[in-house]
């Protein structure tokens, strides 16, 4: 027979738990084949200023030549099971191609609107990442010809920001993206709540509306990489109207009718209110009378010192016979109850007496 263990006896020796290894931080990443052409090469994750977000954002670079944006898919409450390990970070990082001109555009607008500058001169001296971007990755003419005027002088190349060219370039890009969205079949617009449901076509609905939806969505996608004022200008240029709630001719009529009905019902409410106000006044009087009855010894407002019996009957008698609402019945019950309460509570302090000013 084994010895029974009691609290007084020593606890059984537990197996020593091996010290947990410092958990390795794991991330799941989809890397584009373009960056993996060279087996030996090393990729670097760097931060560059992102004009749309207004702060440095993660990019991936290959040497000094290729640059791609790193976007993360981060759904709430996701994690990975990797072979026999749990990875609590449920994000997926993906490398996406990015137009370097969009990144350079911000710096160009900032420094080269008034005068033409050489690439080396653009940017502040202490902003290392911007300087690196502009000197290494921006291949002058190739990337800036669409948004800037290029001037050659004494062997040096100078760039000056051209707003017209930029707007034209952005508009072309936006239209291309809108076409791509249409070809993918992305659901967008007012009715796009779920991909599982498609809005039925109403009679007389024009297809132009949906094209505007695609254009609006494309403008938002392009606008993700632009400064806010440039995005607003692009919207104006493409004549993208702000989203308005769907108002077809039938709904307009319905809303008008509803409005009229509302007014009628408002009138009804008003009349109800007036009735309620009258009743409230009567109930208030009853409450005051309750206070002045034997229930209260030290009443703060001892203005009305009316005797019990005569007043309890009065609210009932003053009630107009036309008002057929449940409240007078309630009042009768209350007064009967109040009578009983008052009887039993004779000689006790009321709760109001505790809240008087001292």
């Amino acid at each position, binding site marked *: 027979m084994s010895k029974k263990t009691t609290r007084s006896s020593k606890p059984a020796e537990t197996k020593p738990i091996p010290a947990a290894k*410092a*958990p390795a*931080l*794991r*991330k*799941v*990443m*989809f*890397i*584009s*084949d*373009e960056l*993996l052409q060279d*087996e*030996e090469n*090393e990729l*670097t*994750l*760097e931060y560059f200023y992102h004009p749309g977000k207004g702060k440095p954002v993660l990019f*991936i670079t290959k040497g000094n030549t290729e640059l791609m944006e790193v*976007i993360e*898919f981060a*759904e709430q*409450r*996701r*994690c*990975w*099971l*990797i*072979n*026999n*390990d*749990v*990875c*609590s970070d*449920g994000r997926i990082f993906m490398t*996406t*191609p*990015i*137009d370097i001109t969009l990144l350079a555009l911000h710096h160009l607008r900032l420094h080269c609107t008034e005068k033409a500058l050489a690439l080396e001169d653009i940017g502040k001296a202490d902003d290392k990442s911007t300087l690196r971007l502009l000197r290494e990755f921006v291949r002058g003419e190739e990337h800036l*010809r*669409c948004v800037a005027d290029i001037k050659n002088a004494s062997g040096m190349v100078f760039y000056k920001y051209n*707003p*017209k*060219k930029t707007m*034209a*370039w952005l*508009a*072309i*890009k936006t239209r*291309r*993206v809108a076409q*791509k*969205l249409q070809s*993918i079949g*992305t659901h967008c617009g007012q009715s796009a709540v779920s*991909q*599982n449901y498609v809005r039925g076509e109403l009679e007389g609905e024009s297809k132009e509306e949906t094209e505007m939806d695609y254009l609006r969505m494309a403008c938002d*996608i*392009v606008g993700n990489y632009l400064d806010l004022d440039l995005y607003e200008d692009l919207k104006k240029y493409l004549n993208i109207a702000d989203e308005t709630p769907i108002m077809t001719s039938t709904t307009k009529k319905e809303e008008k009718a509803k409005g009229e009905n509302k007014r009628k019902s408002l009138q009804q409410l008003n009349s109800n209110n007036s009735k309620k106000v009258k009743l409230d006044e009567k109930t208030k009087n009853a409450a005051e009378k309750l206070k002045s009855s034997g229930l209260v010894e030290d009443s703060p407002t001892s203005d009305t010192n009316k005797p019990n019996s005569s007043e309890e009957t009065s609210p009932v008698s003053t009630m107009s016979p036309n008002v057929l609402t449940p409240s007078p019945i309630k009042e009768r019950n209350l007064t009967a109850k109040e009578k009983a309460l008052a009887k039993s509570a004779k000689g006790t302090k009321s709760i109001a007496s505790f809240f008087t000013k001292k």
Partner: protein
Amino acid sequence: MNVSLKLGRNTANKPLELHFLPAKIFEDGTTDVDNYFNSYTRKGLDGILTNAVRGFPLKGEILKSPSNYRAFVLQSSEKHSEAKVIHNMYISGKFDNFTYWNYDKVPSKADTYKQALQMLDISKELCAPVLDSEILIEIDGMGLVIGGQENTI
């Protein structure tokens, strides 16, 4: 802070088995996935996999990593520190397929993951180069529309 990804040579390692769970587990650690999870996976008639975690039903399907992309699991041994030191991340493994699980919902094209993949195609379109001739045509069109406002630009 720069992070260097050391890709190195892809040795013929067995590809990793990954499950994308619709739940947040707050610990990183080791567990017997085969015994506690994989052994309970069932395949329905419609090809949808079913399983459960802590009693919560899961519906899943096997997805491939997006085309033109290679999927890796990267590992870093150091936690992010404030010091601006270039630290390295190594490839812990690669995978071609993974099992995508949804909480009690059949995986469809409405899943946010599938929609996120569309962004990859859209970004590619956004980067396509624009010809000078196209810009000139657009500017000409601008002149007709804007007219008197040209002076302000």
